[in-house]
């Protein structure tokens, strides 16, 4: 829809490693200048524009502050849009995923809260590892395929951490 690049909105060069605290500060400054509240007195047109600007700022911030969304966005900037749901041609990873999922089911059956906590820590480590690998290869054209695989892996882990949260919710009764 012809909207500017999310990074450009924050006056940043496309990069995977970002200073999130700085991003947050910049976001607050920008939000202050475009939020519809600033134009409560303004014309209908001004209010509409403020609404649109604010919405695209919020969207950009959502994408940039989330690691895997940022990774996916970076790849979409330098090539075709990644399809969200693809079978991962990555048997070793898939096997590992299945094992993790089974583990999670066991944790649910045994309502093991300490186990869930430990599981979360491991998940976090796995995510960090993916992030590091991605940081090293996303802007190398020859490693494009590897980068795409890493993004899909990130998405799998995102889904898994979502399931962990849902499990926590179910156990919280």
């Amino acid at each position, binding site marked *: 829809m012809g909207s500017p690049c999310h990074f450009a909105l924050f006056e940043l060069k496309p990069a995977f490693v970002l200073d999130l605290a700085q991003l947050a500060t910049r976001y607050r400054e920008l939000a202050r200048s475009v939020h*519809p509240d*600033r134009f409560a007195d303004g014309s209908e047109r001004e209010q509409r524009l403020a*609404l649109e600007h604010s919405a695209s700022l*919020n969207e950009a911030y*959502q994408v940039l502050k989330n690691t895997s969304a940022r990774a996916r966005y970076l790849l979409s900037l330098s090539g075709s849009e990644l399809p969200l749901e693809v079978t991962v041609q990555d048997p070793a990873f898939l096997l590992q995923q299945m094992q993790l999922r089974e583990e999670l089911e066991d944790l649910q059956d045994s309502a093991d809260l300490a186990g869930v906590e430990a599981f979360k820590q491991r998940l976090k480590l796995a995510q960090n590892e993916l992030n590091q690998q991605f940081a090293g290869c996303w802007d190398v054209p020859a490693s494009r395929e590897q980068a795409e695989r890493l993004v899909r892996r990130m998405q799998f882990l995102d889904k898994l951490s979502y399931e962990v949260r849902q499990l926590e919710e179910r156990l919280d009764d």
Partner: protein
Amino acid sequence: MALLQIAEPGQSPQPHQRRLAVGIDLGTTNSLVAAVRSGLAEALPDAEGRLLMPSAVRYHAQQIEVGQSAKQAAAQDPLNTVLSVKRLMGRGLADVKQLGEQLPYRFVGGESHMPFIDTVQGPKSPVEVSADILKVLRQRAEATLGGELVGAVITVPAYFDEAQRQATKDAARLAGLNVLRLLNEPTAAAVAYGLDQQAEGLVAIYDLGGGTFDISILRLTGGVFEVLATGGDSALGGDDFDHAIAGWIIAEAGLSTDIAPGQQRSLLHSACVAKEALSAAESVTVKHGDWSGELNRQQFVELIEPMVARSLKACRRAVRDAGIELLEVEAVVMVGGSTRVPRVREAVAELFARQPLTDIDPDQVVAIGAAIQADTLAGNKRDGEELLLLDVIPLSLGLETMGGLLEKVIPRNTTIPVARAQDFTTYKDGQTAMMIHVLQGERELISDCRSLARFELRGIPPMVAGSAKIRVTFQVDADGLLSVAARELGSGVEATIQVKPSYGLTDGEVARMLQDSFKFASDDKVARVLREQQVDAERLLVAVQAALQMDGERLLEACERAEIELQMRLLSELMVGSDGAAIEQQTKRVTQVTDAFAARRLDATVKAGLAGRRLNEIEE
């Protein structure tokens, strides 16, 4: 004249004259209005010096009575006196019937989904009743401040859904108020505290009012109030404490549960008096008619414990949603009259491992925060001084997809304003129209979510199935109100609606929207109901199957098991068919034959839990 008033946005045209704007807390039990005067935000008193006005409206044939005197008349004139109307805002007749046994009114439901309360002045909608409360507050403000209001910030529970927000905004308009902003109550409280204490960092706002509970987690940074997550329960509050005590009185006094409206009111009144007394006293004598009994704090704590636990669960969820840990929260602010209950304070202190803040009167803090924001929005602040509130949507917004499932377009706790688009396609060759069904909620099945609107995109050029590209865009503005647009990208055919609850029938858009849905309603509905029945049946079968596998051997006689398996087989056969009624009936049948089994499993779990062991350990 108007041409000469040139001013920068956000700046007052006449620097020395403040523009009058107020904050209004339209509460379940009490309402109040506040304004910034000489740089200080304070609640405005009525002629008798009272700040709180009971949210009570009594309808006489020729006049309307609002506030304290109306509240006092509630027991003698229950049918014409409306209390706690906030609980009815944006609700359909069906929702209200769920609350029904607690409410003494006569409801009349017309063609619209809106519940009308039958009074001597004729049927009154909750929006009108709320508007009558707001009118009195507006008059109070204009009399005290000495001038006409530029506008008002009205607060709503963060957990209010789309329909409830829209209803509130309409009530304000009906009362002749220009709504500068709908502001979430916890955010308003954060503003009052944050500015007062120059606070920075992570703050939790625990807001337990008369009828609603909200929890919000915010990050405060240099005048920016960023809501990270919000949650709660729009049907949990101090009123429920009263009902719990009333239930206790009924049981203790051996009263019949079939109670006349007037008696119910006085019962609830006795309950409320007892509750308030227990905030200070260890034990109170409760009187109801000729009966009297002793209620101590421990008993009261036991009565309300399930509700307190519900609120804490919502707190934990909000903290998880915010992506933080409980112990990272640096301050907990208590809002709402019900946080005066000692057990509530104690439970919150335990959860967050810190004493909650109660320095600003919990009844006034929301209105004060709203007044500060109103002052900013009216343009009375200089550049850079203004605060900025970044709020979120409390519930996910989405669309119905095939199979009656909800496809989330904007997840809950997304910062507003927000716009997001999703592409869909046609599923039949030559399809020229597409129904768009907008819903709000967290559940997978649309039947568990709140339906906000249906409309139709027409005039799609006939194409092969799957080749049209229909982009549906959701936009939520800073008030948290939604509009939805659908557009076929190839032809540019477009349809847009502002989502409004069904009482706005005069509005052309809504009328059209309803008309559209009527045409499709009947067969659409049958299909949906069938799908729900199938899903229910399936869920039950899966659950029973799993239970049989786990505990069937141990807990069932052979013939019991055979009966269960027979009924299950019958259900799985019916399930693939399209006879909804038969599926429903057989689902019930399976539930019946497994009741005893379920009870035994529960017992076994409880026993195992008591022994501190798990089920599988016992088996061995």
